[in-house]
């Protein structure tokens, strides 16, 4: 691990900030629970991006100050949020018509594993998990125009999460187009993972050592 002496991995906000930089104005975006939720904090308010929460809020704004909290206005993670001017409320049917009908420019999900063929596993850790909870993950993964995954490059004990084939139960097949990790940004291409950029001090060799799937530089 000496190769990493110079390279400081991004923290959760650093990963969210890196991803947020790639979201252009005008996109309609759904953010999953966990690190993805942090992404909206790093999109400057003057860049108008429409964040949708699958419980039926379009135009989600930042968290309110305590004195303005309203329990009627929550996001899909059941956190209190605000509504931006221009925002609206819809039912679950309309919210998921938006998601499943291909009206989301982007969905950002956390993941346990992403495979080189674009498969994603993010909802259950084994096939006999107790009370597994899927929520809207499968609808989002299948329905969005683009799916970007954001996650640590490896597990806490150093096992790769960018794999040849997922070992955890799948959320959707062949849908991930890009992965943002604490070490790098990678595209999923027909030839597998292509490294777009890496944190300062990281090398392709060091990154490959932390990745099960074969890496190549982006064209």
């Amino acid at each position, binding site marked *: 691990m000496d190769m990493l002496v110079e390279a400081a991995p991004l923290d959760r906000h650093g990963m969210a900030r890196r991803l947020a930089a790639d979201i252009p104005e005008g996109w309609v975006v759904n953010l999953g629970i966990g690190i993805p939720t942090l992404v909206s904090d790093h999109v400057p308010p003057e860049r108008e991006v429409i964040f949708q929460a699958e419980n039926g809020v379009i135009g989600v704004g930042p968290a309110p100050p305590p004195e303005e909290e*309203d329990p009627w206005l929550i996001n899909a993670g059941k956190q209190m949020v605000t509504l931006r001017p221009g925002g609206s409320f819809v039912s679950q049917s309309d919210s998921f018509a938006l998601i499943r009908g291909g009206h989301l420019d982007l969905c950002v999900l956390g993941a346990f594993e992403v495979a080189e063929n674009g498969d994603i596993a993010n909802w259950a850790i084994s096939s006999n998990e107790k009370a597994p909870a899927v929520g809207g993950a*499968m609808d989002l993964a299948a329905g969005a125009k683009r799916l970007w995954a954001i996650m640590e490059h490896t597990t806490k004990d150093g096992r790769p999460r960018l794999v040849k084939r997922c070992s955890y139960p799948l959320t959707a097949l062949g849908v991930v187009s890009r992965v943002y990790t604490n070490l790098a940004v990678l595209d999923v291409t027909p030839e597998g993972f292509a490294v777009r950029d890496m944190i300062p001090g990281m090398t392709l060799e060091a990154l490959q050592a932390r990745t099960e799937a074969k890496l190549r530089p982006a064209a």
Partner: protein
Amino acid sequence: MIDKFVASALEAVADVRDGATVLIGGFGQVGTPNHLIEALCERGLRDLTVVSNNAGTGTHGLARLMAEGRVRKVICSYPRSRGSVVLEELYREGRIELEVVPQGTMAERMRAAGAGIPAFWTPTAAGTQLGEGKEVRAFGGRACVLEHALKGDVALIEAWEADRWGNLTYRMSGRNFNPVMAMAADLTIVQTQHRVELGELDPERVVTPGVFVDRVVHIPYGKPRLW
């Protein structure tokens, strides 16, 4: 005169039967008709199938209904939330059946029931564990699974405003599953925070027309307790 208001939550749920499939609105604790659920607890029913996005938190509402052994099966998308201890314990002990359904598929299955569509194809869950055992067919080269309509015997709904015809509005993210569930059951029962006169609601603002509603009870309980 059409007047769907009844005097109490207990009266509203008086004829729900053992074995009924009950659709319960809400996302987390927002837009959840807890007073109707508590009234259902008082009925002492058996073998209910409950359809709800979440599977109850704490010890009141849906969690109480399950803890008291009234529920045979839960159909939901996200059973595991902060404080969902009752469901997790019952499930671990094998005392409750759980069908986990992707959230959008769950909403669409009820929309289909309300709109007279017996089944539909969707790519959601195709190739995954939740698609196992389902008919598969490719459309435009993409694998889809066949999903069937999900109809309720009863729907329990929370509204913000209601008039005596049962026209409903909702408040913010309290809308969630309520409009689609109101369409999808034989008997739709509403608890509303505000009772308004017929004609008072701007027709442009009505989200659920009273056609889908059978009974309304006025329960001005205030803000939801999130957890």
